[in-house]
């Protein structure tokens, strides 16, 4: 069981709660959702508590992440898109910290659950649709009719645009989920090689050196992936929000 690379994704009930036949238990996944939110919120709150004019190292991290997300959003959605800044920042930090926390041994990676990433993606697309219709009414549907195409092609292009729009939440969620899942499985498999090979005595220990090096290398790669996937998630969120703010392309 120690070598089962799937075991790390197993959900364990810590506090069973059942309401009307629905299992709403507080699980290890729930604990890490709360931990992610609390750790990130506390970090942002505490590092900025001195409100230093000249920032310290930790305050710089908070400010850099703020300005990083702010410039990302401003670049893709313009200054009108800045009203979504709290949402994009929350998503970016939540996904980033969830990914990074998942890299600690024995920690649960909540972004390796498709339902979590899909819920976040639906939140983004839902925001785009609701805001788009509230702000532009049916003008929001111009999103599916790019300007400057021949009238003959309009029905075809509209179908393609609608399909691409509907596939957005899927691709957004599956990308993050699959990256985290695959990375953690690979990591677990190589780490499993180390333990099972070293059980075969001296030759096994020597043979375990290669998978050990791979484990170290993949851990490094996973840190990159953890950041990159959070970044990709946030950038795509910004681009989708841009459609809600400026539907006319």
């Amino acid at each position, binding site marked *: 069981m120690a070598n089962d690379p799937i075991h790390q994704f197993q959900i364990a009930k810590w506090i069973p709660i059942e309401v009307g036949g629905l299992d709403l238990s507080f699980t290890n996944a729930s604990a890490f959702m709360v931990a992610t*939110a609390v750790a990130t919120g506390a970090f942002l709150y505490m590092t900025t508590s001195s409100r230093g004019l000249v920032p310290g190292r930790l305050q710089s991290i908070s400010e850099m992440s703020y300005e990083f997300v702010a410039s990302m959003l401003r670049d893709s959605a313009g200054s009108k898109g800045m009203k979504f800044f709290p949402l994009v920042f*929350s998503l970016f930090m939540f996904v980033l910290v969830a990914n990074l926390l998942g890299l600690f041994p024995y920690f649960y990676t909540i972004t390796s659950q498709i339902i979590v990433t899909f*819920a976040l993606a639906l939140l983004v697309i839902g925001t785009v649709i609701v805001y788009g219709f509230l702000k532009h009414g049916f003008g929001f549907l111009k999103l599916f009719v790019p300007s400057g195409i021949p009238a003959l092609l309009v029905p075809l292009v509209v179908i393609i645009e609608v399909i691409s729009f509907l596939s957005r939440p899927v691709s957004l969620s599956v990308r993050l989920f699959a990256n985290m899942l695959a990375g953690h499985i690979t990591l677990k498999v190589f780490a499993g090689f180390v333990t099972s090979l070293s059980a075969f005595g001296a030759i096994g220990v020597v043979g375990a050196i290669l998978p050990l090096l791979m484990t170290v290398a993949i851990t490094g790669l996973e840190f990159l992936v953890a950041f990159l996937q959070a970044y990709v998630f946030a950038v795509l969120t910004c681009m989708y929000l841009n459609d809600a703010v400026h539907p006319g392309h």
Partner: protein
Amino acid sequence: MFVTTAYAQEATPAPAEGAAHTEVAAEHGAAQGVFPPFDTSTYASQLLWLAISFGLFYLFLKNVALPRIGGILEVRRDRIAQDLDQAARMKAEADAAVAAYEQELAEAKAKANAIGNEASNAAKAEAEAKRKEVEAGLDQKLAAAEERIAGIKASAMSGVGAIAEETASAIVQSLVGGTVDKSEAAAAVKAAAE
């Protein structure tokens, strides 16, 4: 560590509960076989806790953390702009001071030049006057000297006639041995001199 203990907790009750909870156990067993991310029985709990944690996280960031960081950045931006303004103002002041100093310097130079010129002109004029005075004195002295020389020359020349007469009469006396009339000698000298 969390996962292992939690798993142990979850694993032990399943066989212990036994036949009394066959339904639960069966459900549990079925859930165990599924790849965990696709185990729909956990979705409700995950969605609920995600909504709670992410929702509170979003509200906290939106209302507390982000306004604070934004405020810090704004204060800093204002402060930097203010400092830049102040620096620009100080630079303008310094430039003005330099310009005033240079103007003063130029004025002082011009004044010094004027004073110098004036002084040198005065000195030149004085020197010229002195030179003229000296020259005039010298000319006067020269004229006096020339006059004296002319006088001496004239008197010498008049003296020469008398000496010649005396000499001639003396020569004649010593040669011929008689006296020569003074007027005769004078006429002879005059003739010889001409």
